[in-house]
């Protein structure tokens, strides 16, 4: 008999139908992965099982756990099930823990709230599960507070809380999305180990198809609140039925062809750059200590070249970007663009600045919500001595919008009228409008859904053709970097540990860190397309 059985689950919030007849089955010891693009209803399905839906939500259909119907279970009995029979792990480890309670208390709470065992024993159990998730109490005492742990460690605590009572069902909603590739690999390993060890069933929600392919016994693909396809992993990968599923997998491994690099004139020269941040003082009059975010970085970027920069979160990628843009002074070394320093004296160099533009990660945060698109994308005109006016200005706007696949009419709209992908197009238009010689992409596609990401990568390739772009592409997503760059640098703790032609680095990494990074990254199996 199956552990969890969802039949014809429909859900509406007010007038919106969020889920439409979702079916899903999960057996003990099995991992079922639910995937699909953002907003497809993955989280809502999970929350429905937990009966932790938003207050206004109305659910119909049937959700059975070991034959027990959950939808019409009274709240007290549901409370008894949560934590005891069903455990749940959430996406954001940074906020999923109560900041004012120790991790020991929080893990023990799961046990104590169900009166499963007396406090002394509960504490013993807490130690045990924390050890199991890789936080042995001799190194991570129960008295630690969440803020004293890293993101990955916090996620382990959340997992420990969820498995403390060995629930039959574990629900994990994007448990690794917020984590580094290496940490992600460890956490996924841990989850898989727990499932086999305890014989739990796991409902795993993720939009990362590589993870899905790696881990799941069964895959459920959702779109707009409906299950479009479901099946055993190996079978589904080989025989995709639904075009949406195919599109999803195709887009995840999207490849573009870049035009060849013409001549190799050096454009950007970064030599031995060091950027220190002053740490908060530990003692009142002690000498300030420094955190070295960028540590002796040197490289050259040639005109027409597409350079990648990869590395874990916090390794200093964005800091380097800001230094190159001349937004912050560096403590040592020089950054020359076309032979001129970006920072002269203590002031940014305007003449150099106008040769550079940037595209940021967050499609929602990178625009002033109060300005219209025309004003937004012409902001870089401020760098020009004689900015275009009148008809010339509107022509440039129209040209740029068309170039990034939007319509000139969009100039009069506000940013909230656009989707995430469209916004990123606008961001690219803004970067291109003064025809800079260098563009920096700082995680420019990381926040986008796979299909949208594929479109943006296509757009970039087209633009390379049309405008002969030179760019530095920063990302933690190795697959993307691999296809969109000619050369790549690997950064670790502020240092560039390896650089070389992209293909060479990916196929034959020299540095152990690069190797580790590549090994940790989940990879999509080669999918034999069009068999069906």
């Amino acid at each position, binding site marked *: 008999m199956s552990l969890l059985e969802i039949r014809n689950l429909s859900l509406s919030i007010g007038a919106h139908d969020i889920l439409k007849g979702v079916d899903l089955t999960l057996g003990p010891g099995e991992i079922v992965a639910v995937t699909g693009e953002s907003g497809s209803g993955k989280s809502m399905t999970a929350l429905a099982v937990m009966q932790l839906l938003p207050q206004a939500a109305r659910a119909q259909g049937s959700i059975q756990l070991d034959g027990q119907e959950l939808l019409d279970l009274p709240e007290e009995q549901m409370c008894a099930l949560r934590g005891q029979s069903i455990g749940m792990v959430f996406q954001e480890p940074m906020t999923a823990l109560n900041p004012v309670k120790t991790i020991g208390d929080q893990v023990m709470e799961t046990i104590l709230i169900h009166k499963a065992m007396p406090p002394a024993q509960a504490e013993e159990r807490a130690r045990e599960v924390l050890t199991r998730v890789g936080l042995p109490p001799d190194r991570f005492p129960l008295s630690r507070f969440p803020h004293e742990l890293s993101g990955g460690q916090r996620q382990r605590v959340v997992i420990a809380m969820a498995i403390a009572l060995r629930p039959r069902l574990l629900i994990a909603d994007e448990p690794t999305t917020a984590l580094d590739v290496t940490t992600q690999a460890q956490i996924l390993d841990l989850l898989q180990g727990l499932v086999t060890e305890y014989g739990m069933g796991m409902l795993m929600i993720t939009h990362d198809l590589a993870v899905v392919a790696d881990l799941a016994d069964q895959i459920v693909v959702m779109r707009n609140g409906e299950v479009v396809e479901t099946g055993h992993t190996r079978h589904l990968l080989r025989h995709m039925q639904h075009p949406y599923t195919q599109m999803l997998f195709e887009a995840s491994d999207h490849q573009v062809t870049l035009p060849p690099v013409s001549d190799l004139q050096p454009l950007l020269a970064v030599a031995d750059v060091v950027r220190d941040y002053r740490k908060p003082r530990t003692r009142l009059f002690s000498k300030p200590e420094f955190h070295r975010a960028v540590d002796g970085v040197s490289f050259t970027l040639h005109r027409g070249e597409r350079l990648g920069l990869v590395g874990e979160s916090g390794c200093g990628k964005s800091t380097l970007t800001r230094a190159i843009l001349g937004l912050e002074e560096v403590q040592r070394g020089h950054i020359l663009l076309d032979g001129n320093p970006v920072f002269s004296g203590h002031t940014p160099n305007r003449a150099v600045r106008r040769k550079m533009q*940037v595209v*940021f990660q967050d499609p929602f945060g*990178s625009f*002033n919500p*109060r300005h219209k698109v025309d004003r937004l994308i012409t*902001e*870089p*005109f*401020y760098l020009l001595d004689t900015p275009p006016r009148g008809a010339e200005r509107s022509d440039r706007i129209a040209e740029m919008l068309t170039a990034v696949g939007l319509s000139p009419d969009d100039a009069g709209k506000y940013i909230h009228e656009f989707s995430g992908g469209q916004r990123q197009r606008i961001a690219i238009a803004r970067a291109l409008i003064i025809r800079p010689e260098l563009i920096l992409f700082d995680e420019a596609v990381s926040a986008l859904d796979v299909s949208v990401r594929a479109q943006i990568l296509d757009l970039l390739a087209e633009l390379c053709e049309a405008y002969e772009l030179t760019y530095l592409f920063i990302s933690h997503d190795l697959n993307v970097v691999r296809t969109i760059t000619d050369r790549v640098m690997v950064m670790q703790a502020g240092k560039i540990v390896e650089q070389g032609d992209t293909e060479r680095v990916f196929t034959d990494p020299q540095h152990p860190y690069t190797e580790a990074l590549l090994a940790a990254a989940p990879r999509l199996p080669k999918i034999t397309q069009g068999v069906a």
Partner: protein
Amino acid sequence: MSRNLIFGTALSSLVVLAAVLSFVWTPYDHTALDIPNKLKPPNATHWLGTDHFGRDMLSMIMVGARTSIAVALVAVGIGMAAGVPLGLTAAARKGSWLDEVIMRGNDLVFAFPSLVIAILITAIFGAGAINAIIAIGIFNIPVFARITRGAALSLWEREFIMAARVAGKGAARISAEHILPNVANLLIVQGTIQFSLGILAEAGLSYVGLGAQPPTPSWGRMLADAQTMVSFAPHLALIPGCAIILTVLGLNLMGDGLRDWLDPRIRVART
């Protein structure tokens, strides 16, 4: 628009309307004494009765609204005019000595018990509307400085500010072009609330005799005058009291409504 906003706006507009109307028309001359007819309860000729000098209460309440609004409005204006630039500067220069000085200065003003200082200021420089405005205004400065800085700081973290910096814009320009419009909602809401607090403060100062001077009517002074007569002429205390309560209530409801309407996420300090 929420019920709060509609009700609050209606109530506040009523008060503003009464104040504006009082410039052109009041039922009686609000300064005209009629001692033989003093302390009359509300009746057909004097809708809200007469005070201890026989003056028409309705006329006085209408003209008093003028005083309350003027004092509170100008005080809020002072607070905004000085506080917002300070807050913007502090945020733009986060962590610098300038930020430190501005914020410590704010803390210092906050540390002074506002009413004591207001009393001191008016006692020293003389009672009167102008000094009341200054006294109330000074304590509005740190409120606006703090709230502006707080909101601006989080905006400075946003990527669109980074984009503006990449476009070569300086801190002053960014503050004016990007930060200010984005904190405007917050300031409007806080302004409404400070406005209502200003009305209460003016009433308090006038109550202790340090607000607008006679013959300019003021709700607070009407209350002070009424104090000893509550037991035999309760309308003298009830009417100005209700005027204050309704005005403040209206403004607060409007502030809350505005906040929900303009942006449900913004935070407003209510102290």
